[in-house]
C-alpha cells in the first residue's frame, strides 16, 4: 500500500483531530506529548481549567495504556499490545476531547466493560463517592495503578465516556475510549 499522507491527514481532520500519536508509549513520550498538548491548547481560546482537564485526561489515558502493556509484557501478545497504542486530541461541536485506543486480550474486556457501565451510570455526586472510596482503599505497592483513572476522567468529562471494542480475532479486541472535556 502506498503511503498517502494527504488521505491520512484528511481523515484526521474530518474527525476533528488536532494532535495524534500512534505507537509505543514510554514515560518520556507521554511527558513530551503532554507538554506539547498543553502548549497547543494555550494558543486556542480555551480556559486554563479546560486545558488542565484535557492534559489530565491525556495523562490518565496514556498511562493506563502504558500500564496495561507493562502487565502484559510477558504474555504471548505482549509486544503486539505494547505497539498498539494511539492517542488523539481533537475538537468537535461538543468541545475538546481526548480519545485513545489499544489492543486488549479478549479475557480483559469483560471487567473493563462492567467498570465503564458502572461509571457511566453514576452522576457527579456518585462519581465523587466512588473516587473517594477507591482513594482510601489499601492497595499493594506493586499494583499497577490505583484504579482511579477512569473515575477521574468521568468526573472531569462534560459528557458520558464513549467506548467501543472492535473484535479482531479470538484473542484480541481493539479498545477505544473517548472523553469530552
Amino acid at each position: 500500500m502506498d503511503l498517502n499522507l494527504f488521505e491520512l491527514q484528511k481523515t484526521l481532520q474530518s474527525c476533528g483531530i488536532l494532535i495524534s500519536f500512534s505507537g509505543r508509549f514510554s514515560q518520556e513520550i507521554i511527558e513530551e506529548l503532554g507538554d506539547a498538548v498543553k502548549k497547543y491548547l494555550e494558543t486556542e481560546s480555551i480556559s486554563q481549567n479546560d486545558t488542565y482537564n484535557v492534559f489530565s485526561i491525556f495523562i490518565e489515558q496514556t498511562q493506563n495504556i502504558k500500564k496495561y502493556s507493562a502487565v502484559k509484557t510477558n504474555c504471548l501478545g505482549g509486544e503486539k499490545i505494547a505497539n498498539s497504542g494511539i492517542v488523539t486530541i481533537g475538537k468537535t461541536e461538543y468541545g475538546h476531547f481526548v480519545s485513545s485506543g489499544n489492543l486488549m486480550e479478549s479475557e480483559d474486556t469483560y471487567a473493563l466493560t462492567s467498570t465503564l457501565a458502572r461509571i457511566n451510570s453514576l452522576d457527579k455526586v456518585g462519581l465523587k463517592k466512588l473516587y473517594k472510596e477507591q482513594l482510601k482503599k489499601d492497595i499493594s505497592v506493586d499494583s499497577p495503578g490505583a484504579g482511579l483513572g477512569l473515575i477521574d476522567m468521568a468526573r472531569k468529562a462534560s459528557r458520558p465516556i464513549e467506548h467501543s471494542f472492535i473484535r479482531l480475532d479470538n484473542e484480541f479486541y481493539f479498545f477505544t475510549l473517548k472523553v469530552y472535556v
Partner: protein
Amino acid sequence: METLYIEATKSTPEIQFDPGNNKISIKGQSYPENAFKFYEPVFVWMDAYLKQLEQEVVVELYFNMPYINTSSSKCMMMFLEKLDVAHQTGKKIMIRWYYDRENETALECAEEFKEDLTLPFEINPLGEEP
C-alpha cells in the same frame, strides 16, 4: 535525622524535608510512571520522622502541586493520613496548601484531601505565601 532532598523532574515534584527547622515542602507536578515507587522513600522518611518528633515541636508542610495524576493522589492521601494520625496523637502539624487561582480543579483537589482529615489544613491561592 538526615535531610531528605529529591530534585524535581518534569513528572515528579521537588521534595525537601528538613528536620533541622521542621519544614517540609513538596513542589511541582506529579505524574511519574510509578507513583508508589517514587513516594516510597518519602513515606519511609516520614514514618521515621514522626516517630522521633516531640509533642511540642511545630511541623509545617508546604504543598504546591499544580498537577497530580490519580496514582500520585493515592500516594498523597496515604501521606496525609500518616500526618493525620500523628495529629490525633497530639503532634503539632500544620498543612499549607497553595494553588493557582486560575485552576479550579487544583482547588477542588485540595479541598477533597482536606475533607477527610482533622489536622489544621490551610488552602491559599499562590502569591500569598508567607
